[in-house]
């Protein structure tokens, strides 16, 4: 699995994503936002951080970076794209995912472990999880409040495109379990083609029990396996 980790000025989780990919046996390469060409890669990842300092609006300037034209083309061609935190914001700004991420309901930065319920285990990114499994993964963001119009929301829910949802210890999507005010407690969604995933929590920070949790490993191993099976079945 050859992964391009796109680095924008102000990205700060690029290194963590890089290490997570390595940990599951993938090959990661940093791609600076002014570079062009992603043809050699199997997967593209957009890391967390504060691209362009979140100035104007989180992700709004990064989506204009030269490399984003290639990311959009890569995604439209069916290539797997993962956006975490600021990466999710950039994917929404670039139109690869519907909706928007606005300021947390608390109006404060929220950093802590949250519980996520896996809602769909058939995406490229979640085959190693069972539906209903509860993951413990950190969030760290100021703008993670997912907003979308009613039609979009209905489609996302109806098509099983809500992949992760904030829940409590019993698995219930309560207001108390929602750290940022997201509609329907949405933490992560995929696009129509199922090849672009954006989520606010950081699976790349949950790779080792030593650091608190290894519940995020499944995202990366799922991708590895999905790619391997698609190559052997010759669907690519």
């Amino acid at each position: 699995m050859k992964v391009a980790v796109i680095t924008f000025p102000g990205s700060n989780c690029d290194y963590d994503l890089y290490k997570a990919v390595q940990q599951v046996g993938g090959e990661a390469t940093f791609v600076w936002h002014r570079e062009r060409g992603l043809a050699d890669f199997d997967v593209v990842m957009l890391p967390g951080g504060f691209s362009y300092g979140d100035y104007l609006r989180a992700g709004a300037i990064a989506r204009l970076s030269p490399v984003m034209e290639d990311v959009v083309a890569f995604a439209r061609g069916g290539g797997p794209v993962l956006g975490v935190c600021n990466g999710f914001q950039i994917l929404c700004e670039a139109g690869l995912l519907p909706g928007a991420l606005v300021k947390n309901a608390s109006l404060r930065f929220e950093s802590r472990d949250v519980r996520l319920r896996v809602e769909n285990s058939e995406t490229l990114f979640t085959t190693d999880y069972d539906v209903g499994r509860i993951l413990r993964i950190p969030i760290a963001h100021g703008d993670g409040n997912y907003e979308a119009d009613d039609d979009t929301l209905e489609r996302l829910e109806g098509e099983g495109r809500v992949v992760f949802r904030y829940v409590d210890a019993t698995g219930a999507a309560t207001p108390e379990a929602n750290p940022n005010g997201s509609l329907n407690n949405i933490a992560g969604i995929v696009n129509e083609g199922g090849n672009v995933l954006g989520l606010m929590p950081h699976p790349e920070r949950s790779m080792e029990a030593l650091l608190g949790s290894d519940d995020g490993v499944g995202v990366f191993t799922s991708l590895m396996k999905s790619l391997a099976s698609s190559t052997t079945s010759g669907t690519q």
Partner: protein
Amino acid sequence: MVEGSTTPRTNVNDTHPHPRVGDPPVTPELVADHGLSPEEYARVLAVMGREPTFTELGVFSAMWSEHCGYKNSKRLLRLLPTEAPWVIQGPGENAGVIDIGGGYALAFKIESHNHPSAVEPYQGAATGVGGILRDIFTMGARPIAVLDSLRFGDLDSPRVRYLFSGVVAGVGDYGNCVGIPNIGGEVAFDHGYEGNPIVNAMCLGLMKKEDLITASASGVGNTLMAVGARTGRDGIHGATFASEELSQDSDEASRPQVQVGDPFTEKLLLEASLELIASGVITGIQDMGAAGITSSASEMAGRAGNGVEIDMALVPVREPGMTPYEILLSESQERMLVVAEKGREDDVRRILEKWELEAAVIGRVTDDGRFRVLESGTVVADIPALPLTQGCPTYEREGRESDEVTASRAIDLSAHAEPTGDLTDLFLKMLGSPNIASKRWIYHQYDTTVRTATVARPGGDAGVVRIRGTRLAVAATTDCNGRLVYLHPRRGTLAAMAEAARNLVCVGALPTAITNNLNFGNPLKPHIYYQFREAVRAMADACRAFETPVTGGNVSFYNETDGRAIYPTPVVGMVGVVEDVDQITGLAFRNEGDAVVLLGRNTDELGGSEYVYVTAGLVAGEPPDVDLIAERSLQQAVLAMIRTGAITSAHDCSDGGLACALAESALGSGDAPVGVDIEIDDDLPPVAVLFGEAQGRVLVSCPGDRVGEVLAVAEDHGVPARRIGTVGPQGGEVRVRVRGASVSVPVDRLRDVWIGALPGIMDAPQVSEA
């Protein structure tokens, strides 16, 4: 009185700069406005051999300010031990550096931003973090963690709540954006900090030993370059401002002296600087911090024994029309001065351009030992560099204790030791005090897990960061209880050192070195100088006893508003090394049925305690004494217990006493609190056993079958130890029985009080001002 460290030189070849058009004449009033005494000005005249120009006066004012010149602290600071085999870089550089093994070195330092934060809390705190990060990465180290040590007045004041929320947001936003995890720190609330909050930020950075670079302008003919942000009119004379007392009027009038932070530029500057250092095209680099270009250029020249010549017309500025005086003294953030190898300037530019930053040649290193400033080729300042950076007069002042403190210490607290019976309500009141309550409200605003190395997050005794690719980890803590220092500067400072060391050993780290942030009032007042002197002497003794040398730090004087000083607050930032990351221990009780063992001895002391503050609003009495030898033995005993895997938790016993320490171990992170059942039959007043703050105590838990081993290790080290109870089930009862009194409460209720306290104050709906 005045110590002469450098013989003034006069040089017949001096280029006498002429006053610029529009510069005010140098009058005694102007000199006084620049914070220089008549004696100091006489020293300026001797150094210069003539009258300084307005520009030169500004330069002296900044460099000989308390903030840059350490004039009232330097002599006492010499008492602090600074050497050990593992110290690679002691005081005098941007940051201290120690060898932590495995080929790695740790750079670390703490710095204050008290004055700016009192005036503009968000920017003041944010730029404090920015400054300390730059101090670390200019050593060639990548920042891996920050900690913050904060003090505010009582939270019932709306202004204090405004300062508190602004500072927390400022600390958080800056570190979050740059992507450095916050791993700990401390906060205290007490009316003694009402007008002057304390905002100290500490940073740790990691490097390979061979990557160390220093801030010196070596290599005559090499090129000086300004890199990073442009110079603007913000923060002019910040260093001088930081060297004065505040008043009611400081708010509005001082705002232009506060800088504005841009963490996004900082992140780019961090990456660019590390790339510059790795590329080998530069020989020195320094942050333009306090006193901006003036201090960075003159100090780099001074350290190398060289001179520098810089032209103000070449410095990239934000607005036209800035005078050399303004450019020299601006404290605009996110700027660096680098010394490039001659001929490699374009390499520097290329690296900076990749990170979308500017680099401009502004001067060169000379061999004449002068700090020479030009404006489009015309000399506007010409000062011998060494006397400027090293020749600041230093003073030893008169010191004597104030009657107020003597009286506070003499207050008889025996009436406060009387309560008996069911003290559960009192216990809940203690747990709900902002000083004891959970600090989640704060650290949930800080990114604590970015960089995927944080093994112990905020909320424990110390933060821990692992070193990837090794078994090593580093731990860090900041500590100081200002009340104890106020009541008894020596004991209070020893307590700060002892608590810091206990916090480190409780996570499994060997205390290795410290950085200090000495926050005091106006040193010209004898009672303040007394506090400072006693504190520094005590710190020196404790550093020797614990083998933790001082590798750098910061002195912040003049923390006074309308003549009223803060509690003397010598914050200790201590770092330790963990040999095996798998041995890290937490404060939380882990298993039902584990034995709870108390190391150390309870005493009949309530002086300076949170209990007396919470129940009577008093800061009074004789603070507990500190036995450095006993503390050292305790530290070694705890480390031995952790290394043999005998204990499952360890927690320092300090603020709020034993009852609060027990509660904290039962509550853990608050996610899965457990009960605990304790019985202590000491012949002491019950509140002293429950809430007294005797030093030298650590609370540990272990499996029942290892109690004998734990007690034996304690005995080997001469540490008093006894089993006092048993860990209960999740959601159980926290019950503590002492002779004549008891507390008993379901842990879930305790949790609600403990976790809900700060949000209850800070997030309560405010009455609208319709």
